């Protein structure tokens, strides 16, 4: 309630200018202001609404007071009361000739209705008339109302008039008309609905050239929306946008567009957003806009929020478009100011921008570790959450424990469901990808279940079960103990709660812990059933805990009860069968609570449970209970066969499966039916062949429709699934890595003949002995990438020390000097922070150490990484050769003329080295057009030149952005990834044509199954293959392709996931086929057969 005095002042203030034209409305506001309670206020408003209802339904309605009525109605609606009775009146007032009544009515309508409302139909005619009005204010009002009230079904009625208004002499009208068209465009963004065939964007393009800056800026909004849907048709506008941005940032617009002395910042930011959308993944476009981006970034300053906003938008644009080292360096520099700022807002956007830069250059975060830690410990949850998001993006195997700890800490204190869900998802995701050990994974996931179980996906629970099942007995035992403790805790709390309520003391000292969610209970039931016999406590105690679940969860679902029954049965079977303590408890006759001695109270409860289930309404429960009893009463061998100990991971024997699949036991039945005159069974394809032509059978030649998300992820996941395997830190989880990989690769080769197996590469990777449960390792493991990318330059012996190595110690020192305030911290906290920082950001440091490992070992991870990079396309042979620890690849590169057989091995190494060098200079590739970024394969005899060229390029680009030498691999939503496969044919004297295939596979890049065979053949023919991440700025090495006329130039498989360019266009398809034929002629016997041979000839 405002004080009286204030109201008097307000009364004076509203003085002459704002005449009391609305006396009754003023009275209403005052009456409401004087209300002492919500109830009183409601009463006043109800009275008012009653009054309005009477007045409005009065046939002698005073039209001149229409505006006031409308305003009073709106006021009542703002206060949360329903005024729907008056909507129809508002429609009437909208056609009132008096402009102020009309405006008020339109305003009320836009407030009351939206385009879904049927009443809008009644308004269309008025709206059209008003849009054609001579009074430009009325036209504006109608156009604004149209942006709110016109839906997809009415667009066509209004559209022509709105287009006509684009030629209105008043710039206000033109501007509003554009906004109206912009709205229409949003209704049908892909132009395949009511606006099919309408050339909206032509109008937007025209209006971009309008002489009035306001109109131009309105058309920018509209164009931005179109470009977000599909940037391709708008690439030719890039010069216009850059020139507008240049002019704006040079202060060429009229002074009235300045905002706090910054030239038209709103227009600048809109343009930056448009450029980001246009430049994403398009190298040529990005180069065109680099200069103007630099200018915009330079001219903005952080003196005012608006300047920071421009800088922030510049940084976002820079990290979205095709990476440019200079721009990235400038961006990194400018966000340093944000992160140092005392303002939370600036730090927030700084963290956000840093996450974008880190995706391209993982070393960037290390410089700001203190600032990041500050944000992590900030009391502001929003900031903390943003920082966690940053950490999530820079998680790798060596810092996952710290980061997950932080996330769990936040999870336990956070109450917002939406955020909790997000964190749970992230923790599960990270745990799957980087878990250092199975035991850690089990404890972490169980903890997640405890803290945020309601948000855990059931799939995660399955994965957890799967993982536990795969491990050995010690882990089984520890999982059993962990879960028993969990149940202990829960039942203790439950009994405490019961006791508290029973005594009605009401003085609960601590909140009762939440009940465990059902998903984890199912997992617990399964684990305790399967492995309960491993528990350290007696079987009866385990039984008691299991049955105790129902004491806490009185409303347990049938599903849980069923699982519980099965668990009890298994537990009984594993602990001595019917004669064991559990078995006895379970099959004891139900005697109405007399309590036999078999299992004490818990045994009685268990017997009760079985008895209840025997008589349950649920058929499934009944069946399970009967089965339990029958099994327990059967002989021990039967019981052991039905419920074997720890056999959940047993593989089925394929022969057995085949035998079962043939359904031999049905044959007698079938024979009888046939004898009885039934038609024999025809498989569906045979049926088709009988009716139609036989030509419909066979393989299809057309590319399959790309599935925009599913397959790319799967494909990308292969690239990385094996990465963890080779990361030295997680190698403990794999079997023998080298042989495993070879096996995996050979499995891949074996799987090659069937096209479908190519698109499902995960299977092969699994066979490589990697972790079985980790699905999508589609994000980069920086540790590995750092080691590979830095190892290569090291091996090349021409490159300055790895940037990360230098950066890590330096940055630590720098932070000490920077945070003078942190000196005031006690030594202990400081050292704690250091430790935390080291554990969080140690990635670059430890990455370096792995990189500086003996160079003999260095090529190994590089080669492996490359191999992992594309497990699908890798054929068998290189795998084994990479496993050979060799000397510095640089020597090999230089030492080319050694004749075979040694040469063969060197060539195996050589591409690896070359590719690794290229990867050293790799920058991130946002998804999108890759046509111009490719890596040339060094052709056979030219080999020494090309890699050397590559190295010198690396050296040359080093000053531009030293730290970009080692980014290795990009990640993040728009990050893409490029893998190159280089295959050189072994005998240079015979066939000098080298073959290189640069295969950029942006994250989620789609590989059509049709394209895959090329790789297969390539590897079959080329034999030795090196694979690597091809360099992004691929200028180097580009000299190679023209050298050999027969060389396989480049073949690009690129597809953008984000840009919707999922359907790749293959201009080279024809050529490829010709080459393929050539290749087949050359193909030597003894390589594995090409399944597509007959298709292509």
């Amino acid at each position, binding site marked *: 309630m*405002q004080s009286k005095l204030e*109201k008097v002042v*307000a009364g004076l*203030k*509203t003085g002459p200018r*704002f005449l009391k034209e*609305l006396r009754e409305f*003023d009275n209403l*506001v005052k009456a409401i202001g004087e209300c002492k309670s919500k109830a009183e206020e409601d009463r006043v408003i109800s009275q008012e609404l009653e009054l309005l209802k009477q007045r409005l339904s009065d046939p002698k309605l005073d039209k001149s007071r229409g505006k006031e009525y409308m305003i009073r109605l*709106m006021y009542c609606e*703002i*206060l*949360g009361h*329903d005024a729907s009775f008056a909507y129809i009146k508002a429609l009437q007032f909208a056609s009132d*000739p*008096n*402009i*102020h009544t009309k*405006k008020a009515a339109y*305003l009320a309508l836009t*407030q009351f209705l*939206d*385009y879904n409302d049927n009443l809008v139909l009644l308004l269309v005619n008025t709206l059209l008339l008003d849009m054609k009005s*001579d*009074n430009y*204010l009325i036209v*504006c009002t109608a156009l*604004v109302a149209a*942006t709110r009230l016109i839906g997809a079904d009415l667009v066509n009625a209004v559209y022509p008039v709105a287009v006509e208004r684009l030629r209105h002499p008043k710039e*206000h009208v033109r*501007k*509003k008309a554009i*906004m109206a068209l912009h*709205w229409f465009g*949003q209704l049908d963004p892909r132009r395949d609905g009511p606006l099919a065939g309408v050339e909206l964007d032509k109008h937007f393009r025209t209006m971009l050239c309008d002489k009035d*800056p*306001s109109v131009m800026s309105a058309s920018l*909004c509209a164009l931005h929306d179109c470009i977000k849907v599909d940037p391709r048709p708008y690439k030719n506008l890039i010069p216009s946008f850059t020139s507008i941005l240049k002019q704006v940032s040079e202060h060429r617009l*009229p002074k*009235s*567009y300045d*905002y706090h002395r910054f030239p*038209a*910042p*709103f*227009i600048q*930011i809109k343009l930056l957003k448009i450029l980001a959308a246009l430049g994403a993944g398009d190298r040529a476009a990005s180069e065109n806009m680099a200069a103007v981006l630099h200018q915009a970034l330079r001219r903005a300053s952080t003196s005012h*929020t608006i300047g*920071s*906003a421009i800088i922030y*938008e510049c940084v*976002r644009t820079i990290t979205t478009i095709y990476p440019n080292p200079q721009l990235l360096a400038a961006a990194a520099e400018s966000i340093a100011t944000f992160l140092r700022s005392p303002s939370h*807002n600036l730090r*927030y*956007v700084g963290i956000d921008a840093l996450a974008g830069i880190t995706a391209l250059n993982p070393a960037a975060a290390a410089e700001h570790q203190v600032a990041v830690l500050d944000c992590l410990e900030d*009391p502001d949850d*929003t*900031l903390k959450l943003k920082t966690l998001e940053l950490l999530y993006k820079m998680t790798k195997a060596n810092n996952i424990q710290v980061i997950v700890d932080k996330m769990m800490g936040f999870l336990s204190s956070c109450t*917002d469901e*939406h955020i909790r869900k997000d964190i749970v998802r992230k923790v599960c995701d990270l745990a799957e990808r980087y878990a250092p050990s199975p035991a850690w994974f089990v404890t972490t996931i169980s903890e997640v279940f405890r803290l945020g179980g309601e948000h855990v996906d059931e799939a995660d629970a399955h994965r957890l079960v799967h993982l536990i099942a795969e491990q050995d007995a010690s882990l089984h035992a520890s999982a059993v103990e962990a879960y028993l403790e969990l149940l202990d805790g829960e039942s203790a709390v439950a009994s405490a709660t019961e006791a508290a309520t029973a005594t009605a003391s009401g003085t609960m000292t601590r909140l009762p812990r939440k009940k465990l969610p059902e998903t984890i209970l199912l997992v617990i039931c399964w684990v305790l059933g399967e492995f309960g016999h491993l528990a350290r406590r007696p079987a009866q105690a385990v039984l008691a805990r299991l049955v105790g679940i129902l004491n806490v969860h009185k409303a347990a679902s049938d599903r849980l009860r069923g699982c519980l029954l099965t668990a009890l049965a298994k537990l009984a079977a594993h602990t001595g069968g019917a004669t064991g303590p559990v078995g006895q408890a379970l099959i004891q006759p139900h005697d109405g609570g007399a309590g036999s001695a078999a299992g004490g109270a818990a045994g009685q409860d268990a017997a009760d449970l079985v008895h209840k289930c025997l008589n349950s309404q649920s058929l499934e429960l009944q069946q399970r209970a009967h089965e339990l009893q029958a099994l327990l009463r059967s002989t021990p061998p039967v019981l052991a066969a039905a419920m074997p100990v720890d056999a959940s991971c047993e593989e089925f024997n394929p022969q057995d499966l085949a035998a079962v699949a043939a359904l031999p036991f049905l044959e007698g039945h079938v024979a009888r039916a046939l004898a009885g005159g039934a038609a024999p069974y025809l498989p569906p394809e045979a049926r088709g062949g009988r009716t139609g032509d036989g030509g419909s059978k066979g393989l299809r030649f057309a590319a399959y429709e790309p599935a925009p998300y599913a397959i790319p992820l799967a494909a990308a996941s292969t690239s990385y699934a094996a990465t963890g395997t080779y990361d030295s830190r997680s190698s403990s989880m794999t079997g023998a890595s080298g042989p495993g990989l070879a096996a995996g690769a050979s499995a891949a080769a074996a799987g090659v003949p069937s096209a479908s197996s190519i698109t499902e590469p995960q299977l092969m990777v699994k066979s490589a002995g990697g972790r079985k449960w980790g699905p999508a390792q589609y994000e980069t493991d920086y540790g590995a990438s750092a080691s590979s990318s830095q190892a290569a330059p090291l091996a090349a012996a021409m490159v300055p020390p790895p940037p990360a190595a230098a950066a890590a110690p330096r940055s630590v020192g720098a932070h000490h000097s920077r945070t003078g305030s942190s000196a005031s911290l006690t030594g202990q906290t400081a050292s704690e922070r250091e430790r935390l920082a080291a554990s969080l950001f140690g990635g670059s440091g430890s990455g370096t150490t792995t990189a500086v490992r003996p160079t003999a070992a260095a090529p190994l991870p590089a080669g492996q990484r490359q191999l992992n990079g594309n497990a699908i396309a890798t054929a068998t042979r290189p795998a084994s050769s990479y496993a050979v620890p060799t000397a510095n690849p640089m020597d090999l590169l230089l030492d080319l003329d050694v004749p075979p057989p040694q040469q063969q091995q060197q060539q195996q190494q050589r591409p690896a080295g070359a590719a690794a060098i290229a990867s050293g200079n790799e920058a991130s590739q946002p998804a999108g057009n890759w046509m111009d970024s490719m890596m040339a394969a060094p052709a056979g005899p030219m080999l020494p030149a090309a890699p050397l060229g590559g190295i010198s390029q690396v050296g040359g680009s080093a000053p531009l952005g030293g730290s970009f030498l080692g980014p290795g691999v990009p990640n993040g939503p728009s990050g893409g990834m490029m893998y190159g496969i280089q295959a050189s044919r072994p005998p240079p004297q015979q066939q000098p044509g080298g073959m290189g295939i640069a295969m950029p596979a942006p994250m989620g890049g789609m590989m059509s199954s049709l394209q895959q065979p090329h790789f297969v053949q390539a590897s079959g023919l080329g034999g030795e293959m090196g694979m690597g991440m091809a360099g992004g700025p691929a200028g180097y090495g580009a000299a190679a392709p023209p050298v050999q006329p027969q060389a396989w130039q480049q073949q690009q498989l690129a597809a953008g996931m984000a840009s919707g360019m999922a359907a790749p266009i293959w201009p080279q398809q024809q050529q490829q086929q010709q080459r393929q034929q050539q290749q087949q002629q050359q193909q030597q016997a003894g390589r594995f057969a090409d399944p597509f041979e007959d298709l292509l000839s």
Partner: protein
Amino acid sequence: MIHFVILMSRQGKVRLAKWYSTYNMKERARVVKEITPMILARPLKLCNFLDWKNIKLIYKRYASLYFVCGVDAGDNELITLEIIHEFVEVLDRYFQNVCELDLIFNFHKAYYILDELLVAGELQEPSKKAIHKHIQDQDDMVEKAKNGTAEEGQAK
């Protein structure tokens, strides 16, 4: 894009609400009910952004009024803050030192001004001068209409 603009008092009373995305009356009430405590409970020094469901709330307090914008998660937070500020500057110039009561008694004028600044969830007029001129034109016309020269006004 901006999904909604809400002005609320320190007591949580809504003074102005403009919805650019489709929310029906129930949803509107729920949004207001959910975001009000979140924003009012924020200490002054924290950042002006809040994650709420899948949208981002950008708010700023001017005297006793909170200006709240709900924007897409990917939008530039700082520019939204500046849009709020520009709105306040325009209001201030129009009402000459604006206060909460101006907005209560003349809330329709505030809506008209907002309509000049934002259309369909996007900033459409970056120039304050142009907004003023336009609002002034409107006022003049309304004035004429009231003075009985409605025909003349419409003929303009």
